[in-house]
């Protein structure tokens, strides 16, 4: 019996969710059989035991037998920190379920996971002698699916996850002429390409590349016996892979993406120990193993280009490290690539905590990569929320180890993501600047804060939805309006959705907050407001409240109503409405816009932009 299963049993008996370390082990499981057993156990545990995890409603819709896909999905989702509520459509009800957008389970799901097999696209009877007919039939079926799916997303706010489908060898090999065999493969690749293209045209559709990922699966993806007997076209290993891809979508959609990569140096970013072999002696670039370390550096740099903040966490003397980073001809990650460099002899957990502090981020957005079992064990014990990646073993696997669990996956990259490493570098400068002032107000005056409030547009909606998904601390009601819901409100006369941007003398922070407001009968009700923790403590939230009251006054509203719904993390926002001059009972707060005091901080200049 796998000890992981015993741990799950013990947690279920004690009525609590698996702890962070156990969840990490679930998420990193390679063995499909254990993952299936774990999922079965999790699904059978009392729902209440998982109450500390974040609810995620999932509907599984399949063109074939679902088999172990459900328990495998459980394992991945619980591993990622969700409490899944799973509904399954009936066997054979695939088209009907999508057509009606009526999903199994209670209410509209957050995620619809589809399970597609090749038989769905293949005509029942076909002849390789009539290639055109065969191709037309496959195309027609694809058109039907595309139609169903695009109509479906109009009627649900769920994210629909599709996947590419491998062409079975038994179809390919039935075509005897090599020319036709190439044509059938080309036809199938186009089918998969169209499935992938659907994601580009519809924000609610995500297509994961199962067919591509299967190429890296060491196990068989298909078992002819299970297929013929049980209409089960995939093995547990293939379903486990698909469940992992779907889990990564859920993670990205719900804003659980990590933002920071903390890297060790010796035997992680280069081979050898700097203190022993000097800068010219480390293995970096050239032939193996130096090329493996250089490729890891390139990969980290590519992550940085997409908004991942790099932190250096090395036990070394700082001067030789700085010199090696600046002078070594093969170095990809130079000194300035790192937003924080913690190069000293202090314990790494403390260094990571400090780095988090100076970046204004929580350590639960950190990934830490190190070759030393001791350092990884120490960080895992001190900071269990940090995702730990091993750089031990053959350096050829470094890039794969870093990328395979999808820690940094996001739904879409925004301009803010791309600029983030730079933003956080200026932020570190800003915290130095703050030490030279006698009072915080003096400091804030000198910051020259500018707050811009603008109706959400097609360009800003992705960032606003991302903030809704990711913001945990300053999140007044915890209602996470996604891109689709926000788009509907943007176009509705009864709603206002605005983005809040902040700039100061050190740079442009971009969009850091948003408000969703509903108007009815002269009452402006704030459905939710979120503000990135990056800008807390500067009065930006009060500026937003002052703006809101003024706009309500101009519109002749008689009441502005706000809510606060406490969660485990949003304590920082509990007194927001009171500070903004609203009165209430702790849950519902109101203010009369005509009589409300102006709470606009004197150090903030507000700019408004109307819809363009």
């Amino acid at each position: 019996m796998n000890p992981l299963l015993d741990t799950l049993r013990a947690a279920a008996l004690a009525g609590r969710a698996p702890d962070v370390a156990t969840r990490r082990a679930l998420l990193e499981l390679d063995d499909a059989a254990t993952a299936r057993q774990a999922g079965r156990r999790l699904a059978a545990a009392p729902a209440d035991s998982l109450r500390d995890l974040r609810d995620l409603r999932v509907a599984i819709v399949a063109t074939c037998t679902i088999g172990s896909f459900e328990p495998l999905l459980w394992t991945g989702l619980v591993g990622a920190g969700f409490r899944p509520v799973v509904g399954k459509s009936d066997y054979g009800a695939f088209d009907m379920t999508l057509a009606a957008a009526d999903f199994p389970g209670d209410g509209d799901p957050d995620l619809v996971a589809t399970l597609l097999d090749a038989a769905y696209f293949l005509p029942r009877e076909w002849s390789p002698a009539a290639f055109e007919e065969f191709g037309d039939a496959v195309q027609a079926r694809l058109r039907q699916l595309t139609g169903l799916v695009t109509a479906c997303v109009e009627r649900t706010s769920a994210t629909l996850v599709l996947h590419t489908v491998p062409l079975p060898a038994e179809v390919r090999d039935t075509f005897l002429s090599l020319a036709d065999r190439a044509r059938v493969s080309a036809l199938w690749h186009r089918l998969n390409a169209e499935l992938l293209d659907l994601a580009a045209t519809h924000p609610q559709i995500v297509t994961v590349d199962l067919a591509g990922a299967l190429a890296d699966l060491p196990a068989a993806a298909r078992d002819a016996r299970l297929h013929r007997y049980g209409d089960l076209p995939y093995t547990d290993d293939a379903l486990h892979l698909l469940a992992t891809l779907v889990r990564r979508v859920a993670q990205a959609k719900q804003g659980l993406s990590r933002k920071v990569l903390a890297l060790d140096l010796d035997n992680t970013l280069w081979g050898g120990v700097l203190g022993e072999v000097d800068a010219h002696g480390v293995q970096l670039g050239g032939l193996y193993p130096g090329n493996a370390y250089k490729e890891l550096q390139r990969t980290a740099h590519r992550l940085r280009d997409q908004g991942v903040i790099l932190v250096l966490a090395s036990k070394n003397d700082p001067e030789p490290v700085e010199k090696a980073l600046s002078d070594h001809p093969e170095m990809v990650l130079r000194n300035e690539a790192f937003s924080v460099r913690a190069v000293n002899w202090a314990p790494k957990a403390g260094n990571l905590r400090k780095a988090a502090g100076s970046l204004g981020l929580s350590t639960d957005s950190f990934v830490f990569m190190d070759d030393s079992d001791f350092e990884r064990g120490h960080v895992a014990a001190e900071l269990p929320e940090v995702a730990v990646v091993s750089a031990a073993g053959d350096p050829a696997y470094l890039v794969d180890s870093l990328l395979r669990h999808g820690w940094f996956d996001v739904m879409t990259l925004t301009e803010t993501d791309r600029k983030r490493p730079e933003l956080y570098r200026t932020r570190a400068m800003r915290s130095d600047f703050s030490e030279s002032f006698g009072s915080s107000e003096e400091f804030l005056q000198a910051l020259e804060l500018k707050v811009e409030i603008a109706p959400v547009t097609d360009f800003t909606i992705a960032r606003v939805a991302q903030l809704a998904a990711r913001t945990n601390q300053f999140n007044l009601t915890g209602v996470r309006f996604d891109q689709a819901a926000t788009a509907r409100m943007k176009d509705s006369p009864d709603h206002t959705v605005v983005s809040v941007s902040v700039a100061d003398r050190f740079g442009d922070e971009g969009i850091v907050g948003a408000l969703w407001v509903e108007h009815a009968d002269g009452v402006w009700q704030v459905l939710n407001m979120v503000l990135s923790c990056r800008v807390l403590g500067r009065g930006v939230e009060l500026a937003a409240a002052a703006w809101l009251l003024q706009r309500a006054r101009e519109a002749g509203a008689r009441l502005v109503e706000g809510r606060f719904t406490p969660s485990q993390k949003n304590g920082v926002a509990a007194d927001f409405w009171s500070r903004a001059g609203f009165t209430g009972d702790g849950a519902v707060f109101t203010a009369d816009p005509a009589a409300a005091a102006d709470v606009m901080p004197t150090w903030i200049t507000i700019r408004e932009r109307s819809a363009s």
Partner: protein
Amino acid sequence: MSNPDDIEAAVHKIICEILGKTPDELGRQEPLAAHGWDSLASLEGLAVLESELGVTLDLRAFHAAHTVRHMAELVASELSANTR
């Protein structure tokens, strides 16, 4: 694992796991159908028995086995065929 008793114990444990029963609740000679053994359970049973015990079973023979004991005999004969 070549001892028939060990094999039977291993099969028993796997089948119980799939049915969510304790070993006391499922006799090794009782018909599995009486314990909710349906086509889905049998598919899972096949996959788990094969991966955990390192055998490939004939699907027709597997479906003809209605008790834990029968299944264990099937596994044992496959195992001994492999080692011959």
